[in-house]
């Protein structure tokens, strides 16, 4: 456990004195391994630890804690701050409906999360409509329609047309039907697939979403920076949803995605059911990453 590991380095210091450059650096070397094993990206871990080192060196060791606990506290606080940023509600647009696009790699949980977000917004007084705009995956439209049926959420689906046509038709239907929020489910795609990334840009340009949420699998490893960076650069995502956090993945990808995209992590998927969805808690994630 982290505290025990760091205690070893600080056995010389006893409740008074300052954290020196040497003992901080030594102890952070062990932390680096912990972060890498937690799937934090290599470069992100290096930069993060440099910042922690700067903050920790020269700090007075409080009488009530051990030096190791002091470093851990700095680590934990720095990590929480990085992951956090106050939870702010989803941005609404002046025109109705407000459009939210769900994007991300294959299998990350977009369709499931589209349902969850609809359920969540409804419980907060909104009138959501879900738009089935994955025209590529076998039975994707069926999947979202069923999710909608099971939770009595309105789903708009139009088969045999392009994703853009389906999305625009849904937006018009929401406008006419009085739904104030349109959540658009899109097909999973690789960030290196130029054609499909262009399709998302077209969707964004025509739909004017007030939010583009990047849905990221909680067990993603080092590659999280690559996909997050590409989606940020090409689409300018406004938020992230980390899914499958009900598993035991340490979730280092959360730090990587947050660092590289600058977008806040808004929500966490914590199960397959429609209600297994919550606002993201940066301090809990920090604990999880630090093990």
């Amino acid at each position, binding site marked *: 456990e982290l505290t025990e590991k760091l205690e070893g380095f600080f056995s010389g210091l006893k409740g008074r004195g300052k954290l020196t450059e040497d003992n901080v650096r030594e102890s952070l070397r062990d932390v680096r391994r912990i972060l890498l094993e937690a799937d934090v990206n290599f470069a992100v871990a290096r930069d993060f630890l440099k910042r922690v080192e700067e903050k920790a060196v020269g700090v007075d060791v409080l009488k009530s804690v051990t030096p190791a606990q002091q470093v851990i506290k700095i680590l934990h606080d720095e990590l929480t701050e990085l992951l956090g940023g106050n939870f702010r509600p989803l941005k609404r647009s002046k025109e109705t409906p407000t459009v939210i696009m769900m994007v991300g*790699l294959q299998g990350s949980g977009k369709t499931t999360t589209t349902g969850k977000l609809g359920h969540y917004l409804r419980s907060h007084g909104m009138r959501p409509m879900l738009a089935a705009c994955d025209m590529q995956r*076998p*039975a994707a439209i069926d999947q979202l329609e069923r999710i909608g049926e099971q939770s009595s959420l309105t789903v708009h689906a139009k088969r045999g047309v392009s994703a853009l046509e389906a999305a625009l038709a849904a937006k018009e239907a929401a406008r006419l039907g009085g739904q104030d929020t349109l959540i658009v489910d899109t097909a999973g795609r690789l*960030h290196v697939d130029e054609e499909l990334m262009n399709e998302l840009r077209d969707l964004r340009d025509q739909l004017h979403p007030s939010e583009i949420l990047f849905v990221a699998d909680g*067990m993603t*490893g080092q590659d999280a920076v690559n*996909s997050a960076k590409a989606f940020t650069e090409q689409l300018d995502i406004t938020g992230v949803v980390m899914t499958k956090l009900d598993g035991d993945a340490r979730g*280092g990808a959360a730090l990587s995605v947050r660092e590289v995209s600058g977008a806040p992590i808004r929500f966490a998927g914590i199960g397959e059911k429609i209600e297994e969805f919550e606002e993201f808690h940066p301090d809990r994630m920090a604990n999880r990453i630090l093990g």
Partner: protein
Amino acid sequence: VGAALKLDEETLEKLEEILITADLGVETSMELIERLRKRLRLESVTAEDVLRVLREELDRMIEETVAEKETEGDEEEQPRPHVTFVVGVNGTGKTTTLGKIANRYAKQGESVLIVAADTFRTAAVEQVAIWAERAGVDIVRGATGADPASVVYDGLSAALSRNVQRVLVDTAGRLHTKTNLMAELGKLDRVAKKLVPEAPHEVLLVVDGTTGQNGLSQAKAFAEVSGVTALVVTKLDGTAKGGVLVPIGRELGIPVRWIGLGEGIDDLVPFEPRLVVEAVFG
């Protein structure tokens, strides 16, 4: 004998970065660097050769631990029906991979039956039914929300009565930390054995190529509950290197059989070490 080349801090960090960012994990990366160091002591290696030597060590490690020792052609008489379970955590590409494999066997002239035993996830049966159609093979499905074990049972009795050569069973995604869902896999195993004593002959664990070190804990859990014959690593057509397959091979002795390289029916290739080595070192 020249002095052994020493790795300076900067070079060391560069090498670590190559290995770690490939998802090889800290322990495997350290082991590879250690093997590199050994060779630096024993051979006269120049600075330019360091990368080549490290690449050789990765290739050797994969050959020893991950590549399959015998090809399917070496097996004696294939059991009939030969039963494969496709398992893994949510969203990794099980259903898609099963469709690709079904197509492969069908194109090779074998009779294939797909068993749609994911009775839980929304539209899972519809999805795998489309793959059965694309591959031109039959499918056995159950009533919505039916017990997956009963679908496996029906599927295997159909396979026996139709004298099918291969049965491919699609199962629901399940996080390995969910004990009740993992126990369900054990139940599928027991039910299968009622009709086909040696079933499942093959359990394929499908791991998403973008998965980090959690892949190792997934493999451990599935190996414990249902035994894992081989891995399929999917989505390596992206930028992920899939390196976690190396620690899985080293620690659990589980080889990789297939690599998924896309969403199309033909986007499946037999595993070869060079696929990973080239991805890691470019």
